[in-house]
């Protein structure tokens, strides 16, 4: 029930942000479309704690701030090596162990690895992630485990 | 400055097209097409401001979604057959 209310509210906010019209006809059409979407989401059985991770709401802004800083640093490193040329890169595969327990924690961790340029998650098997990295420094950075620790903190 | 950024995006789109034409494997081409699509989203929003019509942003949102679905569709379709891999991964 809680998830249904949050889904309706966020859909309403999205609709209002995209429309910009405030006549009665438009608003009622919007309400009808939101009702249909919520009904379809219920039939697809996706209205649960995985689609709307409400328990993360308070902790996620701090994590995003840290992640954006990481993304900027990694971007500058990759751009530097693009201009330095093929001789300066050291690509390779590595395996990372994730310490998260829930599926959503693992997905956040894998997505964060992929979102940082220089590292891409290729394959997930259990808690073993196969990661391709552009530089040996990125592998070392990943194996120091700071991102892993922060995501694990996020889910408790 | 808006026009300079538009020209830079167009240059990057030309680079992506070159990679899509010469790319040795299917996956290089899909990567280049994906990059072309995301740059198109930026190009549409920049052009909306250059022409003074910010309504173009709605088209940019829809284009981002269509681009994503088309890439996923091509990758699902490519599961039906096996293509030649790149040299590096064969080792």
């Amino acid at each position, binding site marked *: 029930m809680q998830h249904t209310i949050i889904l309706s509210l966020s859909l309403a906010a*999205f609709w209002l*942000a995209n429309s*910009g019209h405030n006549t009665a006809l438009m608003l009622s059409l919007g309400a009808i479309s939101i009702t249909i979407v919520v009904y379809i989401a219920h039939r697809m059985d996706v209205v649960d704690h995985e689609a709307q991770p409400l328990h993360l709401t308070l902790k996620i802004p701090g994590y995003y701030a840290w992640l954006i800083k990481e*993304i*900027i640093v990694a*971007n500058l490193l*990759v751009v530097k090596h*693009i201009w330095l040329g*093929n001789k300066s890169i050291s690509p390779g595969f590595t395996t990372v162990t994730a310490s998260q327990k829930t599926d959503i924690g693992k997905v956040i961790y*894998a*997505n964060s690895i*992929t*979102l940082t*340029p*220089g*590292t*891409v*998650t290729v394959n997930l098997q259990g808690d073993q992630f*196969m990661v*391709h990295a*552009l530089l040996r420094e990125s592998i070392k950075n990943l194996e120091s485990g700071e991102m892993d620790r922060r995501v694990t903190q996020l889910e408790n | *400055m808006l026009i*300079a*950024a538009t020209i*830079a*995006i167009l*240059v*990057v789109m030309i*680079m*992506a097209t*070159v*990679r899509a034409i010469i790319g*040795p494997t299917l996956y*290089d081409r899909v*990567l*280049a097409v*994906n*990059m072309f699509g*995301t*740059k198109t989203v*930026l190009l549409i*929003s*920049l052009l909306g*401001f250059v022409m003074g019509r*910010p309504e173009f942003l709605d088209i*940019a*949102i829809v284009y*981002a979604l269509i681009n*994503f679905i088309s*890439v996923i569709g091509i990758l699902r379709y490519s*599961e039906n057959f*096996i*293509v*030649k*891999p*790149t*040299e*590096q*991964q*064969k080792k």
Partner: protein
Amino acid sequence: MDTLIQVSSALFLLVGSFLCISGGVGILRFPDLFTRMHAVGVTETLATTMILIGLIIHNPDFMVDIKLIIILLMSFFISPTASHALASAAMRNDRLWESNEKPDSKQVKSSNP
């Protein structure tokens, strides 16, 4: 004040354009698929963010800014998903190719027709 807004917007757009062109050079220059994927990652995260922030500063209208933020969030959620789908599809293809590499396998097709 007006000049400040114009100058900072121009600065963001300039940095974004430079990062975009770097990614374009990377996709032409790097030797194989996975390294090229990192070059595309640069254009899809920081370059997109910089150009869209430049547009947000350039434009005072609130409704338009919200749409720009929606595009920004959408590209942040879409880009890792597409990258991961592409990487795992390429990996799966390589594995099947290795287990299947025999002269009599008929269903193997080259990507270069």
